[in-house]
């Protein structure tokens, strides 16, 4: 059972990442590969500051800022230099690998012997329950903030930018600046997931971000399938489904491991699972015709 609990906790750690991908992929229509780099960056900044005994109120803003800068760079390259968003993301992600390695000075930094978010806050005696409550509160706060943001005039303009650029420009919005802000926000959220995972698993590794974008994409795609299926238009429900998607994704991986699939095959299982979900609507419509 612990197996599934830790999958749930990981899912909650990834909820910020899923919301970030939801913003870049669904709201702005930009496939943002910066994610792999900014996720690790979040973990690296956390690890370096924790091992330098910096207080939590410094670490959290630093992580958000670092992720935001990474996203803004991708946004700048994409909008100002008119480079394909996918390529812009790959460029920043590649550069971030060196940045991360330089910041850490090593490829792996253990955090077992420094106090972290999960040892500083005590909401329950059981460490798993404690982690659950901390992550749950964290997730709820982030979701409320993003949900509120999307409801504001700024948020509506953001949603319109990915939907009808000609319209929103004629309504007085600088779409370049909007995309840069959106990518900064998305990657700040992604970095937050790196921040949580590093402290949850007790180390930061230079390769922890490899393929992480698929975790976010998978979560968003699970949510999108449900959104289309249930014909949901509410912003709040959509966000809740994205969070649900993040948890379901981790649970599926946990089931895979639980039934004895070789862990080396986990990435292929992930890829096939995402493929299955993406193609599900098409496959079911093929059956009907």
């Amino acid at each position: 059972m612990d197996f599934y609990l830790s999958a749930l906790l990981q899912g909650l750690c990834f909820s910020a990442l899923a919301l970030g991908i939801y913003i870049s992929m669904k709201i702005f229509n930009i496939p943002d590969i910066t994610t792999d780099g900014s996720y690790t960056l979040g973990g690296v900044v956390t690890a370096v500051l924790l091992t330098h005994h910096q207080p939590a109120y410094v670490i959290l803003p630093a992580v958000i800022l670092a992720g935001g800068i990474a996203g803004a760079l991708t946004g700048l390259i994409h909008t100002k230099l008119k480079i394909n968003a996918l390529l812009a993301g790959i460029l920043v992600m590649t550069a971030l690998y060196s940045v991360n390695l330089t910041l850490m000075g090593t490829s792996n930094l253990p955090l077992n012997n420094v106090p972290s978010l999960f040892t500083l806050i005590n909401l329950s005696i059981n460490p798993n329950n404690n982690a659950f409550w901390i992550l749950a509160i964290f997730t709820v706060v982030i979701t409320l903030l993003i949900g509120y943001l999307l409801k504001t005039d700024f948020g509506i303009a953001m949603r319109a930018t990915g939907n009808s650029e000609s319209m929103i420009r004629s309504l007085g919005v600088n779409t370049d600046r909007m995309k840069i802000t959106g990518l900064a926000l998305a990657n700040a959220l992604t970095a937050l997931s790196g921040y949580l995972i590093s402290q949850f698993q007790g180390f930061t590794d230079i390769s922890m971000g490899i393929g992480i974008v698929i975790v976010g994409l998978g979560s968003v795609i699970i949510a999108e399938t449900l959104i289309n299926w249930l014909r949901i238009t509410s912003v709040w429900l959509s966000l809740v489904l994205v969070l649900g998607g993040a948890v379901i994704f981790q649970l599926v991986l946990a089931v895979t491991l639980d039934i004895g699939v070789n862990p080396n095959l986990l990435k292929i299982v992930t890829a096939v699972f995402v493929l299955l979900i993406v193609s599900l609507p098409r496959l079911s419509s093929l059956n009907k015709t």
Partner: protein
Amino acid sequence: MIEITNVHKIFNPGKANQVKAVNGVSLSIKDGEFVVIVGPNGSGKTTLLDIVAGSVFPNPGSVNIDGHDVTKLPDYQRSKWIARVFQNPMSGTASDLSILDNFRLAAIRTQPKGLTIGINEAFKSKVKEKISNLGMGLENKIEQQMGTLSGGQRQALTLLMSVMDSCKVLLLDEPTAALDPRSAEIVMRTADNLIKDYKLTAILITHNLKDAYSYGNRIILMGEGLVVKDLDSKNKADLKQNDLFVWFG
């Protein structure tokens, strides 16, 4: 209201696919004038409209709106004066957003989009009231996504959206080209009423010579990037519909 001075635009200069879209156009459009521009495809009508809107920059030439030199301002900064209706109904509205969200953005076209929630009950009833004037029965569907509406409904709403915030200039780029005749008529009548009610300065591009004849108080024929004919309100009143067909003969 709008001063266009010696405006040129060449696309892909120096290349094999070079196009001289606008070839030295000067126009002075007075406050409250409703200008209809006609002309064959490739005569530079849309490029001229894009130059006024700011999505294309002239080289050389200058554009002046309401006493301000806006030649170097991008489209999103000219929204202070200009509202636009596009040929494609998809371009003027955001499909995935609700009608209400679309109207909210339009209502703050000239203002910054801040971090406060602007949609409240008062705003909803204001939108409902405006939409009910269209007589399309859309006032009870304001929470619906824009994408669920037909092209005609979307164009009519786009027109309404343009006067949600202060507006001086309305640009209409073949707003009825994608519509069936009945919807087209409703959209054109709505546009004409709004232009009169709000005393807007308007430019309409159209290929429909009946519309060109019926609407507006000035008509311009363009050809090869130049103004070929320019008839003011008195001369336009004397114009017969058949004369327009002769222009294209």
